[in-house]
């Protein structure tokens, strides 16, 4: 018995060593580039950092950076609340939109490859600096405003909006929906990757399932909820996490802007660290709680 165990341990040991060799680049990188800045920025958030010529000094001031952020700074609380409430609404909208588009793009029709290519284009064209330029381009805003103006009389969404507003049923809920519809462009360009992930999931569902359901008298609507939904429910989790991570790290993000202004223009490294740690912790908590909730509903086929 003991001998057997030893033998196994030898093989396992060899495997473990090669495993460690494979992930060595990550470990080294993590230790050299991540651990130190990680803890240093945590430490700095409790310090007053002054930059002198040639070196910098940190003086421990306890929680006062955090206190300052929450009680004195005029913008931070507001930005934080705005950011996270917008994130919740938008992320749900992105999930629904991308699921819907993936369902359509999974059907067979002419020009499918072209449409897929177009839907995926924003992943490439609106990353990094380009999206920042897009948001403060007054000329483009002007052009779209003038287009909107000339077409405002024939806009279907406007008239529907008008009718529903005057009907006065559930106005608050409708307002949210209209808000999302107005932002549909932002949602569409933010959901490229999610569409692809959903598509990849849809392609793995075997057609025989749908056939069986069809023979048993299942309508398309029912098979959407009974087959498609459970089969790709694990991708909802992946997509949800990706959406939140992506959303909270976008470069046109107000909180991030605020942090970099505090850091680069006002040179308050300690305060900036405290702010970004607050932000980071909230994002982690949101991801943790929501993925726990979603993972309860996930159905694993095998």
């Amino acid at each position, binding site marked *: 018995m003991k001998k057997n165990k030893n033998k196994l341990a030898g093989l396992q040991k060899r495997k473990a060593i090669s*495993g460690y060799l494979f992930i060595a680049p990550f*470990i080294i990188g*993590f230790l050299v580039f991540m651990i130190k800045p990680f803890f*240093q*920025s945590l430490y700095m958030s409790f310090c007053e950092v002054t930059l002198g010529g040639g070196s910098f000094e940190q003086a421990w001031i306890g929680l006062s950076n955090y206190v300052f952020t929450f009680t004195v700074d005029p913008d931070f609380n507001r930005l934080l609340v705005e950011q996270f409430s917008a994130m919740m609404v938008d992320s749900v909208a992105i999930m629904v939109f991308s699921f819907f588009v993936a369902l*359509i793009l999974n059907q067979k029709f002419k020009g499918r490859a072209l449409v897929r290519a177009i839907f995926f284009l924003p992943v490439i*064209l609106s990353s990094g600096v380009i999206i920042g330029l897009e948001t403060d381009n007054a000329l483009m805003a002007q052009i779209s405003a003038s287009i909107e103006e000339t077409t405002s009389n024939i806009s279907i969404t406007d008239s529907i909006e008008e009718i529903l507003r005057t009907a006065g049923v559930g106005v608050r809920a409708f307002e949210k929906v209209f808000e999302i519809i107005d932002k549909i462009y932002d949602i569409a360009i933010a959901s490229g990757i999610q569409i692809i992930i959903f598509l990849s999931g849809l392609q793995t569902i075997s057609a025989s399932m749908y056939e069986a359901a069809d023979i048993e008298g299942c309508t398309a609507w029912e098979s959407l909820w009974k087959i498609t939904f459970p089969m790709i429910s*694990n991708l909802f989790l992946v997509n949800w996490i990706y959406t939140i991570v992506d959303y909270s790290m976008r470069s046109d993000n107000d909180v991030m802007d605020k942090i970099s202004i505090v850091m680069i223009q006002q040179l308050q490294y300690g305060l900036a660290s405290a702010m970004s740690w607050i932000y980071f912790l909230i994002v982690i908590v949101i991801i943790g709680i929501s993925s726990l909730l979603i993972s309860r509903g996930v159905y694993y086929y095998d």
Partner: protein
Amino acid sequence: MTKKAKMKDKSNSFWERNRKSQGYLLKKTIMKYAVSICRFILLFGMCFMILQPILNKISVSFMTQDDLYNPIVISIPQHFTTENYILTNELIDYTHTVMNSFWIALTIAIVQVAMGTLVGYGFARFEFPLKKFWFACVMIVILIPPQTISSSLHLHFRFFDIFGIFKMITGESINLRGSVIPYYLMSFGCMGLKNGLYIFLIRQFFRNIPKELEEAAYVDGCGTLKTFVRIMLPDAKPILTSCFLFAFVWQWTDGFYSKMFLGGTTLVSTELARLSDKLGAYIQRIMGIKTTVSVAYSNCIVSTGTLMIIMPLIVLYLFAQKGFVESLSSSGIKM
């Protein structure tokens, strides 16, 4: 097969068959066409919405200054000109900048994907102590906003040292800011732009490859490394292409890391961010007096610059479209 063959088989008209099926065929056909018309309208609208900003930019980039202020001109320029392109080319030193960006993005992407493959394979196929802990670290790297640690990374590279070795030898720590070395080092250490994501994707892919393939290789006397190179790598081609293309594109447009680590090199992303300031300086130099550039004109130049900078990406996308879309969707990522 299908329709025509069936028609010939039965050799009776549509209405005949419809009658036999008690109206079911007619209903089915109408439904089919209605669905495809709805789908067409929806998709056309959404595609147009996505493409519209690019089309707008194209039309604006060919306008003269007069056209920009002319309220009648909206999308088709009255005085067609390529002046904007010439000016932008001069302002951002196009060829030089694109070559710079190209080399950086290419090398960084190769390094990132190579390292991601090694690490992803290690996580997917080996059992070792603390595996869960290290994978949690990968998740932290994905989740942590670079801005959170940027302030201390800033200082880390400003006063760079490895355990005080350099300080002992030269008495000074090294200032690595403004050079490209730190960024390459970080990419080698899997800490570059979105590097954790590539590790994650590649790991998920390797996990889905059947284990028997590998075991067969081991039984036949293949070593660990040889198995990896000869058996696993060729299988992983689709996911590697996808990751490489993503790494390239995201590096190309990235502003954050470029500004922080590659400030000394002229790159398309940093040049684009500075374009409107440069235009102001240029106009001042030409006019000889202190003036401000009109908002419309500077936005027009920025649009032109954006177009010129995404042009290589569009070309790349046209050629490697399959690599972007199909290979990622066929690789079957699972949680």
